[in-house]
């Protein structure tokens, strides 16, 4: 069994133990599959591999744990979804993913027991508005964005040009300064996991 780490259309060969399995312009970057426990450390190490690859080329990261039988199976995987993969590669070319999560001040959060119905609804409306005030300017700066479900006030992924990452972080800082009741967390750059599927 081999494990797929990422898909790219860049021809440059990866460093061992990674190998390139090629099919007509598309490359699956693979390594022999290993038996592993699923732990945070294993995930971080896998991520390190993908990010090292991303430093040298644009790519689509695979979902963790993508195993195929052999090289032929990898080639089939590429061939079967060739057009989708090419479109996704064009979509993310020259860009990386940044993650943003925002939490409201616990005191201003409408989560207490004994809240009146009206207070609950108003707090909901405020939260929705606050999330929008954060998301809109960030989305404007990004190539693409997706708001994701989660317990936070805002959880979103942004596809940002590689050379616009610093501007984006600068905007996050300014938004944080403007909205004192909100606590913003921004992580990245990540490979474009949230923009890899059509």
């Amino acid at each position: 069994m081999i494990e797929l780490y990422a898909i790219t259309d860049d021809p440059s060969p990866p460093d061992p133990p990674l190998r390139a399995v090629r099919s007509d312009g598309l490359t699956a970057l693979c390594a022999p599959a290993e038996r592993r426990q699923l732990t945070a450390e294993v995930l971080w190490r896998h991520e390190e591999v993908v990010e090292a690859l991303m430093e040298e080329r644009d790519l689509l990261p695979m979902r963790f744990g993508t195993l195929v039988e052999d090289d032929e199976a990898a080639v089939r995987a590429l061939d079967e979804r060739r057009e989708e993969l090419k479109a996704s590669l064009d979509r993310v070319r020259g860009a990386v993913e940044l993650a943003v999560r925002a939490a409201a001040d616990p005191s201003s959060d409408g989560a207490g027991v004994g809240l009146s119905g009206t207070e609950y609804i108003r707090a909901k409306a405020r939260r929705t508005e606050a999330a929008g005030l954060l998301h809109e300017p960030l989305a404007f700066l990004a190539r693409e964005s997706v708001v994701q479900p989660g317990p936070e006030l805002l959880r979103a992924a942004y596809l940002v040009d590689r050379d616009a990452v610093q501007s984006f972080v600068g905007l996050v800082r300014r938004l944080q300064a403007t909205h004192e009741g909100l606590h913003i967390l921004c992580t990245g750059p990540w490979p474009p996991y949230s923009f890899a599927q059509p």
Partner: protein
Amino acid sequence: MSPTRVTAERDVALVDLVDRLLGGGVVIAGDITLSVADVDLVYVGLRALVSSVATAEEKGVLPQMGDALGKHALDSDALDSEAFGTDAFGDDSLGKSAL
């Protein structure tokens, strides 16, 4: 940065890492957690999904949700009876054509 802060930041970034590695990226096998009796449920149309909720309620699979969905608490004029028609979907990403 203190060592504790470094660890705390790495821990907090774990949520973003797991979301991406286990929930994102290119998928080859397809999402198999929703396969029931080999029926691919992922591409079932929206109408069928919505009607399956009504069936589940009737069959008592969702015994508590009927009241929580506000059948008694909500006035008929508080919510537009066409809530699931054009009004609700008008500016929604699902689009009118989704129904």
